[in-house]
């Protein structure tokens, strides 16, 4: 229902720079995930959008209206807190109805809307209970209902389900996605679970050290990470330090074609490595094999002791200490200050010959 435009947002706490030079436009009806390690500034950014923190620099506009100086109660945003922050002295009904009572709506309408939203989050009939009489998942749903009932244009969620077990978390996040799409609300979802981000977002914003690393659709971020940080952070990834020379990168005894010169980082997804016959320069010692049922992960050591993970077919069986040959099907090379370069063994082969199979 609304577009959020952040221009040049920065936030410092004393000497700590929590956010730096953020420019971001969140479109109407979009669900954007803020993803990043602990302390990367996700909560700070969310709280700035909600009006709980004043940015040190920059402006926020919602639907083209500058709201930078508005307090939270005057912004069309609603926040779901990680700790649910329910008011323990009010019933579930009281919690949800509070925002409507402040708006002096008629009693019948309040009752109606509260019942409808409790129904929406699957809690109809729980109105008379106190928050302490609910389970963790139910409490989070009440918090969600409390935010939804005031019909916000923008829903802000700060790791709302982090304290719940995985099953419940998955179910609730799917419900949130469902509700968000049905109501057409713009949503910003903070998480540090990459699965969560990949599963529900329209776009992902990857943050590190208060800076935006990359913004993009989930598949895009996974397949085409722009920086070594994003590559290592989203999904499982083998990151190796290496040197570029003579059209090759040499990293931990592994030799792969790549242009450029100097120091570089080599990134390879576990599923982009397959097993072949052992061959000079492309072998690995198996440390252990983890059988996930649907696939198998092999954790191994390269010549210089560097770890390498391989994800492969569930039919494959190897034993500890065994020497296996590896074949890298696609890889990315990151060099400082340069665009990453991506390679695939099938295209490389066409001009380099079968040497790098």
């Amino acid at each position: 229902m609304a577009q959020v435009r952040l221009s040049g947002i920065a936030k410092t706490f004393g000497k700590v720079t929590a956010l730096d030079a953020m420019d971001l436009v969140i479109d109407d009806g979009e669900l954007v995930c803020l993803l990043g390690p602990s302390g990367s500034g996700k909560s700070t950014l969310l709280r700035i959008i909600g009006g709980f923190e004043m940015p040190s620099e920059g402006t926020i506009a919602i639907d083209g209206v500058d709201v930078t100086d508005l307090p939270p109660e005057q912004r069309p945003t609603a926040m779901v807190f990680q700790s649910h922050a329910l008011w323990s002295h009010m019933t579930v009904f009281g919690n949800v109805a509070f925002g409507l009572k402040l708006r002096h709506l008629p009693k019948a309408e309040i009752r109606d809307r509260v019942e409808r939203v409790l129904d929406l989050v699957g809690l109809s009939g729980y109105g008379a209970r106190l928050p302490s009489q609910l389970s963790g998942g139910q409490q989070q749903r009440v918090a969600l209902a409390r935010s939804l009932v005031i019909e916000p244009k923008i829903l802000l969620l700060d790791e709302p389900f982090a304290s719940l077990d995985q099953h419940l978390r998955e179910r609730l996040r799917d419900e949130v996605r469902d509700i968000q799409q049905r109501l057409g609300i713009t949503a910003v979802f903070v998480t540090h679970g990459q699965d969560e981000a990949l599963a529900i977002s329209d776009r992902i914003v990857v943050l590190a050290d208060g800076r935006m690393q990359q913004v993009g659709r989930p598949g895009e971020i996974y397949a085409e990470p722009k920086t070594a940080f994003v590559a290592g952070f989203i999904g499982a990834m083998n990151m190796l330090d290496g040197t570029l020379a003579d059209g090759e990168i040499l990293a931990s005894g592994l030799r792969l074609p790549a242009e450029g010169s100097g120091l570089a980082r080599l990134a390879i997804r576990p599923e982009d490595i397959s097993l072949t016959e052992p061959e000079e320069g492309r072998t690995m010692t198996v440390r252990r094999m983890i059988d996930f049922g649907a696939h198998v992960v092999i954790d191994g050591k390269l010549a210089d002791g560097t770890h390498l993970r391989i994800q492969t077919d569930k039919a494959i069986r190897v034993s500890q200490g065994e020497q296996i040959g590896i074949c890298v099907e696609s890889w990315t090379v990151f060099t400082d200050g340069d665009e990453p370069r991506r390679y695939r063994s099938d295209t490389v082969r066409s001009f380099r010959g079968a040497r790098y199979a």
Partner: protein
Amino acid sequence: MTDLAPLSPFDASPAAVGRIVRREPVDWTGIAFLTGLAVVVLLPLIVTAVWAFAEIWRFPAIVPQRMGLGYWQDTLSRNDVWQALWLSLSLTTTVTVISAAICFPAAYAFARLDFPGRNLLFLAFLSVQAFPKFGLIVATATIFLTLHLVGTFWGVVLIQLVGTLLYMIWIPVSAFQGVDRRLEEAARDVGAGPMRVFWFITLPQALPTLFAALLITFVSTFYETDAAWLIGLPNVRTMPMVMISFINNALEVQYGAVLFVFLWVPSFVLMLAARRVMGADAFAKGLGG
């Protein structure tokens, strides 16, 4: 989630298995503790209470030789007792109300606002409370003498007010600090301004503990003697002072015992009511922070 869990043979026929109902284990430690506590706390109370109804009770007897309401009649027909009671009640109420009016906002400021010198001020306040009370009272008495406040109602109010500051700031500070800021933020978020947040969220959340502070202040002010004695006499005679003079003048235990029961019943009822209103943990929260 429609996972089909395989039915174990036990689940299939719960009736056939026969249910083992376990009883709650008896908490012997708790019982022992309670008994010990009862002996230490309740025994003196019971003895005193029995004294209030004893007309003759000489040494070897375990129960009084003669029981009756004679001493009750004697005590309660005295004018000075009723006057002192009335005075004590109005004095205590005045002190508590004024103290709350001063201390609660101050406590909120200490707990929530970030003004320069905040920690220093709080420390200064606490260190004042660390002085020996009696010295402070004597010093104040000298000053009050020149101000003609000695022997007046307001003189006693002022000095007793000082005595309440510790509990009335310390406990409420922890009460306000104990209110999760996110609760307040959540209220801002759905549209409440700062005043309404305070009124509908912060205050109700802190209320049980604030009530505990009020209660402690009320009861301790009611029984306060040092300041009331030094500043109040001879004109302002509070209830505890009447009790003291009873014990000093007539060497009969019964007068004191009667007053003891007479005053204990209402404050006990008050405590019970308070526990009902705010739940047992409010006291602990207020004192423990």
